[in-house]
């Protein structure tokens, strides 16, 4: 350990991409946007290759790349406190937004739209927003005490959105929950878990990484601040054996996650293993109380008290009158947004939720009662799973008409559902999205981080830790070339030397000659040797 108080965490954000003339932009053209953004980033920012043709590290210490699925993805550098994390996450968004604007202007075509969003309502897929927390323990041993936190924190970390599997309109506090299948697993695209068991340390022996994939991309600064601040403090308590799993354990975690994610009254309860029933707010209160007992302990970060103050304020607001947080938290801002749009059309979310339950029952009944071949029924079921929004052949509408719904009313609901899904996707659009518009109009509460700090984070690395050393080395080497970077090292091929960053808290750049390093190691492979092999092939 490093003196005890230090904490380190980071955020990966997957972005959706759209743009071009509706109906004319081919998927392959859209997929190329990620690579063109990368190419532009290389010419606009000091960067070093990450050892692949599809990514780079930047002088702020973060990483920008095209991920599997060919969407652009930005990783913050490793940050040491939640304000820093919020600043670097916003800086990453601003970097990508600037590149998207420039790309659109350069091509003379329609603007490129980059979306920080969570749900693909056509394919029923999800974009990831993954957290990493450094730990001195293998995180798998903390699953029982962390799962109830990850399930209940959505009261302030929920992005808001819709149930993509519903034929109607069902608002969710945390739409990512609908893609969760198991309490714990190592999968990230199938068998998605609440608690991810992957432990790829990206550091020296003795370091581990808790990788959280059940969270959602947020626009709210305070939501992101609490997401990292509260989770890091709870992890710290778990590392010191101060959380009693018997007090928190949920009887059925995935069911509890879905229950809380669908409950915008915040009154729904889930069963604990002890037999008691608790709301998400109750569970968060329990975690906050445990944290406050140890807030001044020598192993807690210096900012623990400030996080607890905000955590308590937000839980109080949610308990007494959630409207008081309606200009601060993503899901509450979105709920107002969607309600505003629905009211203009004579609906509200509550009424539509009830109507949607009837619609879904009718759709299910229709599917069951069809007198088709097994193959045909299977095809219809697959259509229902894969194409929940766009009812191209009106199959679902016909089923609903048979079930007594009026066609005109159903058409209106389908149109509204698509509009609401578009509003959800455009909420976090990086170039002129809804959140940005509301903020620029002064309609939202101010966030926790100064604008100037975000501007600085676009170009300069965090104040401490290996990200600072990495970022400074990249700034020095980018113009010269013949160098590459990864999380644990920077390689300078011109001077035949390597900067070892396997210690996450390294504070100064100590370059080592590659030949002397190899002599000293006398064979064997470590992370740096593996990186050298990779980069040597470039």
């Amino acid at each position, binding site marked *: 350990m490093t003196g005890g108080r230090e904490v380190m965490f980071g955020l990966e954000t997957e972005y959706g991409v759209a743009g071009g003339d509706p109906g004319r932009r081919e998927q392959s053209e859209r997929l190329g946007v990620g690579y063109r953004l990368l190419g532009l980033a290389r010419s606009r920012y000091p960067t070093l290759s990450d050892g692949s043709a599809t990514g780079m590290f930047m002088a702020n210490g973060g990483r920008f790349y095209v991920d599997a699925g060919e*969407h652009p993805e930005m990783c913050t550098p490793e940050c040491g406190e939640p304000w820093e994390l919020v600043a670097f996450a916003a800086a990453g968004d601003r970097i990508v937004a600037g590149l998207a604007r420039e790309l659109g202007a350069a091509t003379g075509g329609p603007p490129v739209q980059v979306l920080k969003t969570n749900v693909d309502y056509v394919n029923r897929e999800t974009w990831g927003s993954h957290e990493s927390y450094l730990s001195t323990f293998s995180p798998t041993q903390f699953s029982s005490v962390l799962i109830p936190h990850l399930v209940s924190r959505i009261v302030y970390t929920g992005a808001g959105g819709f149930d993509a599997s519903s034929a109607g309109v069902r608002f969710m506090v945390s739409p990512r929950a609908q893609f969760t299948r198991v309490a714990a697993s190592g999968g990230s695209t199938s068998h998605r878990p609440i608690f991810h068991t992957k432990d790829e340390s990206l550091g020296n022996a003795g370091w581990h990484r808790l990788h959280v994939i059940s969270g959602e991309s947020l626009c709210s600064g305070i939501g992101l601040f609490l997401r990292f601040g509260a989770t890091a403090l709870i992890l710290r308590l778990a590392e010191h054996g101060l959380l009693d799993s018997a007090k928190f354990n949920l009887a059925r975690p995935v069911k509890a996650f879905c229950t809380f994610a669908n409950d915008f009254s915040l009154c729904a309860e889930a069963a604990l293993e002890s037999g008691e029933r608790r709301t998400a707010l109750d569970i968060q209160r329990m975690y906050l109380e445990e944290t406050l007992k140890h807030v001044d302990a020598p192993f807690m970060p210096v900012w*623990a008290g400030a996080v607890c103050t905000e955590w308590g304020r937000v839980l109080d607001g949610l308990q007494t009158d959630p409207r008081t947080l309606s*200009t601060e938290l993503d899901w509450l801002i979105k709920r107002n947004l969607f309600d505003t749009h629905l009211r203009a059309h004579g609906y509200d979310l509550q009424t539509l939720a009830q109507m949607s339950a009837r619609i879904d029952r009718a759709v299910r009944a229709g599917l069951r009662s069809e007198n088709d071949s097994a193959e045909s029924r299977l095809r219809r079921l697959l259509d229902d799973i894969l194409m929940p929004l766009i009812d191209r052949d009106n199959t679902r509408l016909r089923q609903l008409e048979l079930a007594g719904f009026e066609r005109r009313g159903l058409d209106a609901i389908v149109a509204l559902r*698509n509009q609401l*899904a578009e509003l959800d996707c455009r909420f976090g659009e990086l170039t002129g999205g809804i959140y940005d518009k509301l903020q620029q109009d002064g309609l939202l509460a101010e966030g*926790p981080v100064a604008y100037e700090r975000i501007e600085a984070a676009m170009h300069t690395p965090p104040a401490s830790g290996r990200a600072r050393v990495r970022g400074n080395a990249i700034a020095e080497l980018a113009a010269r070339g013949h160098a590459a970077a990864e999380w644990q090292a920077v390689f300078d091929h011109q001077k035949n030397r390597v900067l070892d960053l396997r210690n996450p808290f390294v504070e100064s750049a100590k370059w080592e000659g590659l030949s002397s390093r190899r002599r000293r190691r006398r064979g064997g492979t470590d992370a740096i040797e593996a990186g050298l092999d990779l980069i040597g092939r470039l």
Partner: protein
Amino acid sequence: MEKRYRSNESTVSGDGAPEGIAPSGSSDPLQRLARMNNGMERVIEQTLSGNSAEFLEQVKQVGGQ
């Protein structure tokens, strides 16, 4: 210059909070909510493409995590 976040935050103080941070609920949150709701309709009008189904087709995911 657009002002998106607090502009008075500077360094970390003794209790770990950046100096100059006012409590987040310092202005009346219900008044802020009323103002936000008044501005929502205009933002929605500015935002919707007019062909939401087509927009959603364009955005659809290929292989996210």
